[in-house]
C-alpha cells in the first residue's frame, strides 16, 4: 500500500462514456494482484473531496489500467485528464481474487462495468486452468469484453449474443460447466451478484464475488464500508477484507 503521483500515458474511450485510463506506476504495478483496487484522487481541490475507488483493470509491466464509467463529478474530471498530467493514486488496496488452488476451470461472470477486474485476472490465470468467460449487459453497447478471452455474451434485449441476463446464460451453459471442477469469479451490479450467488449455491460451485460500497479512506481507517458477515458477528470492511469475498462469507 503506497501513494504515488502517476503519469497519465493514455486515455481511451471504449464505448458510450466508458473509458480506459493508463498510468505509469511501477511501484503499485509490482505489488498489485487481480481483484484489488486503487483509491484515486481526481482533483487537488476540495471538490470532489474524497478519493474514488477503481478496480485495477490490468497491469502491463510498469503500467496500470483502470476502466471507468462516467457517472458524476469525479469520473467526469477523470475523463478530462490530459496525457502527461499526474494522478494521485493510493494502492494496491484490499483482498483480490483467490485464483490459485484446487479447481480445473475458472468461470468469469461480468455484468456491465463489472468487466473491470477481469483483464488482469485473465492475464494472471495459470495456464493449467481452463477458462470460460460470460459477459452480460443491458444491450450490445453495454457489453464490455476488453482484455477478455473467448467470451460468451448475453444481452437483456438480445441485441448481442444470448437473449437474457448473464445468469440465465450460465444456466444455458450448465453442460460445459459440469464437465470440470469449476470456480466462479463474478463482478457486477448487486442484483446480478445475488443471482450468481443463488446459482452457485444451488449447484454448490465455489464462487468469489467483487462487491462495491461507498468508501471514504479505502484502507480501513474510517469504517465507512461495511458489508454484513455471514460467518461471524457484525460486518466485514469492503475496502480491507474485500472487495473480493467468498459468497459464503457475506450477505448481499
Amino acid at each position, binding site marked *: *500500500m*503506497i*501513494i504515488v503521483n502517476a503519469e497519465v500515458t493514455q486515455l481511451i474511450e471504449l464505448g458510450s462514456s466508458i473509458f480506459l485510463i493508463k498510468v505509469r506506476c511501477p511501484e503499485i504495478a509490482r505489488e498489485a494482484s487481480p481483484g484489488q483496487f486503487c483509491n484515486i*484522487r481526481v482533483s487537488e481541490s*476540495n*471538490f*470532489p*473531496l*474524497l*478519493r474514488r475507488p477503481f478496480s485495477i483493470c490490468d497491469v502491463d509491466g510498469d503500467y496500470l489500467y483502470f476502466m471507468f464509467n462516467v457517472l458524476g463529478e469525479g469520473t467526469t474530471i477523470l475523463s478530462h485528464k490530459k496525457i502527461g498530467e499526474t494522478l494521485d493514486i*493510493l494502492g494496491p488496496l484490499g483482498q483480490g481474487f483467490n485464483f490459485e488452488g484446487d479447481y480445473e476451470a475458472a468461470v468469469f461472470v461480468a455484468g456491465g462495468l463489472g468487466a473491470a477486474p477481469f483483464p488482469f485476472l485473465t492475464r494472471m490465470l495459470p495456464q493449467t486452468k481452463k477458462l470460460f468467460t460470460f459477459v452480460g449487459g443491458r444491450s450490445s453497447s453495454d457489453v464490455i469484453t476488453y482484455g477478455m478471452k473467448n467470451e460468451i455474451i448475453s444481452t437483456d434485449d438480445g441485441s448481442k449474443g444470448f437473449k437474457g441476463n448473464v445468469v440465465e446464460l450460465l444456466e444455458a451453459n450448465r453442460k460445459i460447466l459440469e464437465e470440470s471442477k469449476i470456480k466462479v469469479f463474478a463482478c457486477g451490479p448487486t442484483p446480478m451478484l445475488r443471482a450468481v450467488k443463488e446459482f452457485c449455491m444451488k449447484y454448490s460451485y465455489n464462487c468469489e464475488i467483487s462487491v462495491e*460500497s*461507498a*468508501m*471514504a*479512506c*479505502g*484502507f*480501513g*481507517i*474510517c*469504517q*465507512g*464500508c*461495511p*458489508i*454484513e458477515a455471514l460467518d461471524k*458477528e*457484525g*460486518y466485514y470492511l469492503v475496502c*480491507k477484507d474485500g472487495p473480493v469475498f467468498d459468497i459464503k462469507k457475506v450477505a448481499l
Partner: protein
Amino acid sequence: MTDGNLKNSQDIDLSVQIGSLRLKNPVMLASGTVGYGNEISNLTDLNKIGAIVTKSVSLKPRKGNPPQRIVETASGMLNAIGLANVGVEEFIKTKIPFLKQFDTNIICNIAASSIDEYVECTRILSPEEIIKAFEINISCPNVKEGGLIFGHDLKAVAEITRRVKGATDKPVIIKLSPNVPDIAGYAKVVSEEGGDAVSAINTLVGTSFNIYTRKPKLFNVTGGLSGPAVKPVALAKVLEIKRRVNIPIIGIGGIMNWQDAAEFMIVGASAIEIGTVNFINPNAGVEIAEGLEGYCRKMKISRISDLTGSYVI
C-alpha cells in the same frame, strides 16, 4: 507574540502543553479517523505526530450501523459509523500493544451510553501507562445513546467531567458538540469541574436523500458533517470559547493543511486534530507539522505556543 531572534531551525519550539500533557507538536490525529493506528502507519510516520486519538471505545464492543455509513457532500462528508469499536477489553488486549511502538502520545477517546459507563471505561483504562490522556466523546450524533444527549445538557457535562476526573489522574479532555448556540457555556462548566481541556468541534448533524428513491442515503438517516465545509463554523466555536473561558482548546474541523491549522491556533487552539483529511492524504499530519514549522520561521515565532489565541481583533 515573541519577536523571534531565530538563529537556526533548532530554535523553533513546536511543542505545546495541554494540562500536564506535553506534545512534541500541536498536530493530533482525530478519533475515528485513524482507527487504532495500524493501517495508517503504512502511509505516514506516526513518530512525527503530536498525538493519536484512538477510535471511540465503549465498555462492550459495538458492531456499528448497517450500510450506508458515509456520503460525500459539497466540500464535506457525512458519516454515521455508529461507534463501531472493539470494546475496552479487546482494545487493551490487541490495540494497545501495537500502539506501544510509536514515539507519540496516545489519547484514548471514550464513548458511552450512560455516565456510569464513561466512568467505568476510564477506571479500567487509566492504569494503561501508554494512555497519556482521555478524550470524552459526549457529542457523537450517530447513535441514540452516543452521548449527544449528554452533549446538549450542561448538568450532564458537569457530572461527566467531575466523575471522570475522579476516576483517573490523567488529563481529561471533553469533546464538545457544535450543535449548540453557546458552546462556551459548556466549556465553562468543563473548566469549573476540573476538566483539563476541551476539544471542538465534533461533527454537525446533517443528512442527504436520494431524490429518486426518496430514501435517506445513510441507514442512520442523519450523520455527522465533517471536512472543509465546516471549518468556518469550527473556527467560530473555538474563538467563542477562547474569548469567554480560560481552558486549553483543541481545535478540530475541516483542517486540510498547515494554513488551516495555523488559523485554528490563532483563534485560540493550543493544539489541533485532523480527521477527514486523513482519508484523502494519510500523510497530512506530518506535512502540517512541517508546514507549521516553516510558517513559524517565516513569521519569526520561536515558540508555536505563542500563536495560540494571538488573534488581532
